[in-house]
């Protein structure tokens, strides 16, 4: 089988920039320390996995917490308000912690007539799917939970599992509004998976890899600014399409139809309260962050910025400091994306369900296909010229 055109156009040695492909950084770390011989390998592996899950849960909670706080501050200031100011002192930074404690303390209510089993496992599925997807999220070049050549596939596949949980929640709630929300979610997510994937094809063709780490490493030239969005004319429109589809995937306004506060009361969340409700909430913010990470990785250079370029040219590569700079760069880029999502949310009205479908199938999908075509052609031209 011949590799695709774009991949042949790339120098192959450039792709394998990081050592030990396919490994787990934690497991490597444990093996480096050298556990005693008598401990079976699977126990070591289990511990590494456990540590990874712990770190992941910490990261997701922190991201969700500060995204919520940020959302409240951003929306507040956009609306000439202050937002939370009291809890914790400085600009209400602890507001989300206080809210979380309150949600934990709330009575665990399951409506009469609800399908109890589905009702209880639905938030779990939603949260598990986003945890699963976040496994592919690398913390730096040297530190990752799983190095996968097909990382982006894994993220898209697991990320869309959320829908199952949402439909379960809507069905199990035994409320008509919840059912509407669930049905809307199903229609919307199926419609927008297509343009989401197609729009991602443009940078994938440009970079020639499915791996997040490799994608980042390939954008390290031009003083750390050889970002995919600058290297191919199709990538900017592809980013716009991706971003719209990502908004729809994460159920953010203007595509918050499954929740649609003014239409469906709270959509599939109507009957949820307390900690179960907060699971859905955490999923939303984690998904926002994940989509922003994808955008940062494949369009905006990932770990690469003039800062990392400067460190690399100064000979500092690898090690904790370099890793930290990489991580901070990525998080800044991702939070810029989260901010853009918030900005759009607090500006735009909601789209109607038939318009959502029209937009997905009639506008975004053909335009995304066009982007893929342009990206492929321009890569071919580039490979011929240079």
């Amino acid at each position, binding site marked *: 089988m011949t590799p695709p055109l774009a991949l042949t156009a790339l120098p192959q040695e450039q792709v394998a920039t990081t050592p030990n492909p396919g490994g787990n950084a934690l497991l490597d770390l444990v093996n480096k320390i050298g556990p005693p011989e008598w401990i079976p390998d699977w126990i070591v592996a289990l511990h590494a996995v456990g540590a990874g899950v712990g770190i992941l849960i910490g990261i997701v909670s922190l991201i969700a917490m500060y995204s919520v706080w940020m959302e409240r501050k951003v929306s507040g200031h956009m609306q000439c308000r202050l937002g939370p100011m009291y809890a914790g002192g400085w600009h209400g930074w602890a507001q989300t912690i206080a809210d979380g404690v309150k949600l934990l303390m709330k009575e665990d209510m399951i409506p009469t007539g609800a399908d109890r089993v589905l009702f209880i496992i639905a938030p779990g599925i939603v949260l598990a799917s986003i945890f699963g997807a976040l496994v592919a999220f690398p913390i730096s070049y040297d530190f990752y939970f799983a190095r996968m050549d097909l990382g982006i596939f894994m993220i898209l596949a697991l990320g869309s599992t959320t829908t199952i949980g949402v439909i379960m929640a809507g069905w199990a709630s035994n409320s008509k509004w919840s059912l509407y929300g669930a049905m809307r979610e199903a229609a919307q997510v199926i419609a927008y998976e297509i343009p989401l994937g197609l729009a991602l094809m443009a940078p994938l063709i440009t970079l020639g890899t499915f791996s997040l780490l490799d994608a980042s490493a390939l954008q390290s030239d031009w003083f750390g600014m050889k970002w995919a969005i600058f290297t191919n004319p199709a990538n900017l429109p592809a980013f716009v399409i991706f971003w719209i589809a990502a908004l729809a995937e994460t159920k953010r306004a203007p595509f918050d139809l499954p929740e649609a506060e003014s239409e469906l009361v709270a959509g599939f969340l109507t009957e949820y309260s307390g900690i179960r409700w907060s699971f859905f909430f955490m999923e939303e913010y984690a998904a926002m962050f994940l989509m922003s990470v994808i955008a940062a990785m494949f369009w905006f250079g990932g770990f690469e910025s003039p800062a990392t370029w400067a460190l690399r040219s100064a000979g500092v590569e690898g090690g904790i400091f370099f890793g930290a700079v990489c991580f901070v760069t990525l998080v800044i880029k991702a939070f810029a994306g989260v901010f853009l999502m918030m900005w759009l949310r607090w500006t735009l*009205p909601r789209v109607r369900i038939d318009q959502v479908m029209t937009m997905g199938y009639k506008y975004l999908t053909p335009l995304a296909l066009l982007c893929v075509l342009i990206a492929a052609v321009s890569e071919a031209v580039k490979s011929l010229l240079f």
Partner: protein
Amino acid sequence: MVEQTQEYKPSIQPSEEGRVLPSGEREFFFDVSTSDLEVNMGPQHPATHGVMRVLLRTDGELVTGAQPHLGYLHRGAEKIGENVEWLQYLPYTDRYDYLAAMNNNLGYSLAVEALMPGLEIPRRATLIRTICAELNRIASHLIAFGTYGLDIGAFTPFFYAFREREWIQALFEKICGARLTYSYIRIGGVFNEAPPGWLKEVEHFCDVFEEKWKEYYDLLALNHIFVMRTKDIGVITPEMAYDFGLTGPMLRGSGIDFDLRRDMPYMDYTEIWEAGAYQIPLGSGEKGTLGDCWDRFDVRVKEMIESIKIVRYCLGVIEPGPVLGDVPKVIKVPPGEAYVGIENPRGELGHYSHSDGGKVAVRCRVRGPSFVNLAVLEDLMPGTLLADSVAIIGSTDIVVGETDR
């Protein structure tokens, strides 16, 4: 293998004419009969603006029937009017249409004053009344604007609208001490003289508001998503508007040029109209069909700027003088009947007062514009999507306090 002896006929037949979608496209569908879902929208629902209940029959997202149910906020306001003195009824009028209390006070006062031929209303009182009524119209339309944005899903315009409304409320607070239920315009004039510097502040508000108004228009009214959501939805044809007896922006949104301020003038509106101070904005079908939700919304937004012009005219001609006519402490109204309709932000607010010469009214009837305008919902909603039904309820701009009274 069974041989097919006759032509295969599916049990589900495509319907021949199909159905026409809101966008004008014709969609053919298989006529599968599934049971309709009955959904209670309200009494506690974010889109019903209070405690109204709409019983929806839905086929998936498609609304096939809608039945508004009223009465959750009924307080017997008309009956109270027959039991309290003329002036004592004034605070109750605040509470029908709590977003436009000044206009309610004005309508009631005019209806009582119509029965008192000897009563002279000082010119300054009339002008202050006009300023207050128009400012209140702006405040009310700001709510309509903001909550319509909320219905469509845009949150931020709501806060911008409230910011300006807060300013108007602060102005009212200075002149009468209350922020929502003013009880300021009374029989014979107004309660208080405007505090020093108040008129200057109103002028300053007018200047700032004209700037902000453009932002509203750009942010919400011209937004593509908003236009797509509201055009061709809930079309009220002019004939339909006549048939249902609609008034106010609902009527003008259908392109019918009728405004009580000009066509059944009260107070000094004739003078202001003849001075050419304001126009009457009409629905034009600019974005879609004439009389759709966008037209009604557009009329409301444009009326705000016309109200600013009226306020400016009044500020130009106002002179010092008394603000209260010669009214006794306990008002006794000569026997008779009077009906006065005024242009409330929502339409014609009619007050019918019937006196037998005593201290208490014999009958105190109110024609609430929201109540009459609400009747059209039942005809508008079938055939729309669920999200459109919310947009239609929002575009009627009802205040449940007034529909139920």
